[in-house]
């Protein structure tokens, strides 16, 4: 048992060292990839908060991601606001959208919840495309440059890392708070929850607002590292990617989305260098995960860990 703990700590330290020194030892391309992984993990963590804790499956998070991304891009290009102010405010756009959607969607049963959130994402997508004056229409907004501390791959890397760690900690704290636990109760048994005086609808709504906020943070970060915002960010398949990452990583694990994001993006990077037909491979991966690894990678690791420990005992 103790052997296991030191093992985990050792692995953790190696990962930490790697993360901290990343930009100095890796070529720019891979630094960029890690930034992308980090941003996607945050978006996936926000989806996992909603799915793993509250039990609500949302296919609409692309709307929050895109809303914050566009808010960032628009504020950076059209107003003279300070870039830090912009990054601080943009996620609230997503949260407000989350509140609106939450009021409409929170009493729906799981499947209808998924469909309505999906429809919302598509509404946002089609509206974005139709306001060229504001959003650049189909082309989106490009050439958003950040300056100073946010300029340059290395700076962006550390900034993103800091934000992700901060958001991860906040989500961890919320997850272990009374709110987090009553969300779990709602996931397990929404009917019984009402009988212990939990306001199921309000709590689900709050979970969505929290989730959409952090998804919005990821959306703002997106603009920082890719210098623009595009309508495709709102298309429902982006939400599908977040959900896929969660399931791939394991929905019952806090680190699941991070692991899933690493796995998926690394895979994508490898496959797209060989073929154009990444979506097909993605589809096959999704089917494989559903059939063979519904617990995700972390679920597999945990089971493997249990078996190893039991082996050691006997």
């Amino acid at each position: 048992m103790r052997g296991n703990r030191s093992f985990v700590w050792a692995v953790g330290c190696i990962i930490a060292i790697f993360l901290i020194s990343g930009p100095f030892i890796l070529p720019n391309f891979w630094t960029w990839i890690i930034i992308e992984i980090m941003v996607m993990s945050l978006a996936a963590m926000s989806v996992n908060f909603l799915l793993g804790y509250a039990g609500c499956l949302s296919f609409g998070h692309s709307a929050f991601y895109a809303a914050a991304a566009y808010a960032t891009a628009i504020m950076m290009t059209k107003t003279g606001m300070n870039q830090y102010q912009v990054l601080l405010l943009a996620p609230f756009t997503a949260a407000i959208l989350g509140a609106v959607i939450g009021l409409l969607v929170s009493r729906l049963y799981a499947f209808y919840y998924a469909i309505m959130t999906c429809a919302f994402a598509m509404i946002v997508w089609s509206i974005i495309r139709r306001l060229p004056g504001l959003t650049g229409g189909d082309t989106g907004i490009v050439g958003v440059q950040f300056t100073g501390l946010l300029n340059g791959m290395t700076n962006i890397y550390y900034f993103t890392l800091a934000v992700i760690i901060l958001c991860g900690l906040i989500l961890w704290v919320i997850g272990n708070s009374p709110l987090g636990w009553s969300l779990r109760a709602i996931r397990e048994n929404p009917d019984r929850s009402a009988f212990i005086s939990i306001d199921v609808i309000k709590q689900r709504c709050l979970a969505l607002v929290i989730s959409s906020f952090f998804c919005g943070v990821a959306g703002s970060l997106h603009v920082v590292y890719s210098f623009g915002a595009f309508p495709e960010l709102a298309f429902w398949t982006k939400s599908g990617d977040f959900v896929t990452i969660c399931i791939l990583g394991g929905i019952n694990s806090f680190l699941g989305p991070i692991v899933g994001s690493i796995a998926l993006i690394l895979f994508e990077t490898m496959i797209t260098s060989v073929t154009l037909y990444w979506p097909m491979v993605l589809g096959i991966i999704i089917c494989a995960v559903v059939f063979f690894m519904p617990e995700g990678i972390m679920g597999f690791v945990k089971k493997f860990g249990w078996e190893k420990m039991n082996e050691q005992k006997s």
Partner: protein
Amino acid sequence: MEINASLLASLVISGMARGMIYFLLSCGLTIIFGVMGVVNFAHGAFYMLAFYITFTVANVIGFWSSLIIVPLVMILVGAAVERGLFQRVYKSGHVFQLLLSVGIIHVISDLVRLLWGLDPKNGSIPNLLMGCFDIFGTVISKYSIFIIGISSVIAVVLIAILYKSKIGSIIRACVYDEEMTRGLGINVSGVFSLVFMAGIGMAAVAATIAYPMTSGTLGMDAQMIIIAFCVTIIGGVGSIGGALVAGLVIAVVESLGILVLPQYADTFIYIIVVAVLFFRPQGLFSIE
């Protein structure tokens, strides 16, 4: 453009024709969900696949043969998908069923991209059905009549099978109480396969009929699945009559909406879904 009665009538008729296509597409989705409780988010992708296969068959052999060949091919595809893939997730809950559908969507839509490329595929109306009727100043295309006619026949046949035949009552029994039906010794999993195949077949017929008058692009699976869900939810899960009415209503509203707000036509559909889900998630004709 001058808006008068005959223009409206034209729009309504062409809307009805489109509505029939929505009906055929959605009736597959609604029976699959109603009978099996399975969420087939990939339904739109099957429609798209059928559409593109129709493009090839129509150009190689001819439109009329495609009406027979394409549904048959798609039924086989549906059988393979149901047996090989969906069967494994019946017990896994909606999350995994949805996710599986997403996976299937990715595979099918990229397959379409691989085999047929990015450019839109346009169909043309077969010679026999080209042209229009002029009835009291209202212009009605012959092809619209053809669509309405053939879809009505299919609708009647479906309802007859479901309510008057033995297999229909078995299917309805599965909807009401799967356990009991299994307990009666009926091969429920066979019934599920049959229903799934029929559902995909319907979507294929919809695509084949739609081919001459629409153009196929790579985004059509997303569009069609939202429409199909809209129709299913408004018409009520499991109700064929409901799908028919809902399909017609939605299409006609869409046609008229284009007059009023042409740019926002597709946003409209999504807004309708949200509104219906908010006010009446069971739909209007649900048997649940």
